[in-house]
């Protein structure tokens, strides 16, 4: 079972990678994107050239045929520019679904191998939280297909997270150490994984909103240039808020459950252990985001920066603290 789980992880990662390429294809050649427009432009110029050359009013669709000798442009590609990428995007979503199934199977076989819930160490925790992330993403994309361009960034994040988990964080499947052997593991860690997964997905529209609003302000240099093909700023911002508003109470609950467990295991509900400190920092940072969001005098972009900063504290808590700081949560590595 443990072996099967180990073999399923690369399957999931590869499927996410394929999905990412699908989203990328849609993103790069998508209907209203800059690339699509740029690809369409020579065709129009060719029409002009064709008109001038032959002296007849040729319809735009014949442009490729007319100038076949000058610029090789297969006429059959013209309709595909419109249809192909859409296809790629839909295929990407179904590959994401397939990857998510492999991802889930990785977790389930892992749990069966260890004979417990599959979130007893950092490797498993990262697997679990990213699974929550992908489920959240799939729910979003099926509810609102307009969000599909975000898939590129979601799968990119998933590939990075899972790749790092498989290569660096991997630990053998084993039973729990005594301190973790409690039903609170099911409550506290699953809540933390769900909140982290949601906040991971919340981070994507947050960053894209900032990019999109920079684009809307007229910026055209690199990160802002992506903005051309993103959903509208307002939609991204609203999605960011709703994901965070949904995840924040779960994160609060995760910390509370952790405190109750800490009382039973270590005798105190709060002891400023490095992990506790950083989850407090993240909580305050996300509270600041939600607070900024409802403060009328704070701009939406400023508020969203809070969410980005808060996500950075989550990453620090997950990756840096587990490796650098020695604390009571150290067995999590």
């Amino acid at each position: 079972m443990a072996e099967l789980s180990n073999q399923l992880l690369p399957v999931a990662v590869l499927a996410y990678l394929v999905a990412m390429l699908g989203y990328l294809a849609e993103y790069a050649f998508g209907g209203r994107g800059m690339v699509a427009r740029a690809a369409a432009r020579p065709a129009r110029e060719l029409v002009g050239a064709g008109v001038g050359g032959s002296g007849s009013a040729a319809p735009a669709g014949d442009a490729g045929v007319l100038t076949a000798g000058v610029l090789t442009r297969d006429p059959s590609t013209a309709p595909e520019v419109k249809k192909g990428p859409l296809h790629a995007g839909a295929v990407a979503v179904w590959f994401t679904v397939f990857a998510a199934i492999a991802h889930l199977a990785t977790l389930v076989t892992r749990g069966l191998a260890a004979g417990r819930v599959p979130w007893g160490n950092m490797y498993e925790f990262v697997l679990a939280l990213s699974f929550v992330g992908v489920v959240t993403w799939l729910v979003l994309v099926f509810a609102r297909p307009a969000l599909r361009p975000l898939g590129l960034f979601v799968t990119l994040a998933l590939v990075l997270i899972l790749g790092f988990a498989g290569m660096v964080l991997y630990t053998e499947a084993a039973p729990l150490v005594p301190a973790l052997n409690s039903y609170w593991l099911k409550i506290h860690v699953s809540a933390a994984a769900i909140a982290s997964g949601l906040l991971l997905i919340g981070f994507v529209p947050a960053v894209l909103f900032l990019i999109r609003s920079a684009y809307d302000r007229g910026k055209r240099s690199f990160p802002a240039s992506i903005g051309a093909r993103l959903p509208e700023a307002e939609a991204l911002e609203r999605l960011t808020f709703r994901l965070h508003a949904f995840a924040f109470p779960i994160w609060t609950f995760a910390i509370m459950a952790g405190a109750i467990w800490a009382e039973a295991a270590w005798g105190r509900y709060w002891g400023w252990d490095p992990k506790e400190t950083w989850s407090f920092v993240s909580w305050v940072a996300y509270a600041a985001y939600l607070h900024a969001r409802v403060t009328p005098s704070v701009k939406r972009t400023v508020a969203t920066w809070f969410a980005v900063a808060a996500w950075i504290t989550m990453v620090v808590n997950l990756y840096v603290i587990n490796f650098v700081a020695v604390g009571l949560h150290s067995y999590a590595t």
Partner: protein
Amino acid sequence: MTGVVASARAFWRWLTSMRTALLLLLLLAVAAVPGSIFPQRNVSVESVGAYQTQRPELSRWLDRFGFFDVYASVWFSAVYLLLFVSLVGCLVPRLRLHLRNLVMRPPDAPARLERLPHYAASTDDRPPAAAAEAIRVSLRRGRWRTAVRQHEDGTVTVAAEKGYLKETGNLVFHFALLALLVGVALGSWYGWHGNRLVVAGEDGFCNTVMQYDEYGLGARTGPGDLPPFCLRLVDFSAEFLDNGQPVQYTADVVYTEGGAEERPYRLRVNEPLRLDGANVYLLGHGYAPVLRFTDPSGTTREEPWPFLPDDAMLTSSGVAKYDLAELDTGLAGVYLPTLPDDPSVQRSAFPAERDPALMLVAYQGDLGLGTGLPQSVYELDQGQIDRGELVEVGRSMLRPGDSWRLPDGSTVEFVGTRPWITVSVRHEPGERIVLFGAVALLAGLMVSLSGRRRRVWARVVPDGDGRSLISLGGLTRSEYPGFAAEFERVTQITRGEQRTPLATANERGT
């Protein structure tokens, strides 16, 4: 004088503004970070000491600014106290306003309903009073709070509001934060803790500060406030996987509370012993080699010496000290529960006792115990060795049952080992308040994030021949994408059967 009052008012306004609260929240997050970078006294005094010896110059400055006690430092306290003052300053007026809103009727319709984000119009065959009453009744059925106002020009307005829970949740959330602070403060005043190492089969200990290896009393707690109970360790067992990872620790203890008879309890890591006014937690465990020491005169003593674990395989080190009249003996030892294949490694191969061995280095001379200075019970005083007052007289590896004769004629017999545990005894009276506060906080948070405050107004104007023109306006006061649909439902309800939409009325007019 007025200047002072004015600037004080300005400061208060600044402090209680939402932007300041936001700034303080950020400051709080940033201020909490150093506590995870530098070692903290409240977490581990030993690591602070180690850090100080490593970087004495830097440590002096860090200590001066409280970086080893971040969460008790002046600056950290200043941030959260300012935040809470800001919170109170912001909450009290909001609470007053909210209570007034709950009692008062929803405000009257604005002059131009068509300027609101949601607007609809229709006609009604009944006179304004009856039409407005019908609207009121249907809104009331939808659990809207309503108020009907009769105006002098014959216009009747219906004002309706819904979603008061949002602000209620918001206030509960913020007041719960205050409750949390109160709970934490109570805990630090009236709480206490003590840590103690207990060897199996020994007398154990009773709950007095004298009997703890380390203890801390809250600011308003005295040694006399500790409830009377005694506890001893009968046996301890640990289960390990083949790779040495622990699976379960079980400590069988016996306790008496307030002079009652002894009761057994199975103490485990996640299963503390909960007594009246104190909880006992299992923190750690280890081995205590039992040595039978016979001095040259033939006097024999047998006792366990707790060794502290150095690694996950329970390689443990410690010391046995024999303070005799003429010549002291100190035995510095390393205990390996499972001797590795290569004994020179001096690291245990497994945490359970599969092939135990005790490596001893014997020193004789003056242990320095008579000086009155406190000494570690786990190591020899290196100063005594450096000064030549303690001299190494031999080394040996003992298996259980082995005896070792020292040059002066004393003998050391390694009888075996006994397990020991460390327990933490704690009392935290603020816990209940903190838990209550946390639950209220979460409930308030969820209500506040999911609630939606919205208002609907209807203005019913007489059209001159006994019928009514109705205009409806709607407004949300928070993020609520579904309001358009809800407003649509409201307009449909108010239209009813005998009323016709305005568009139709217009057609009839032409």
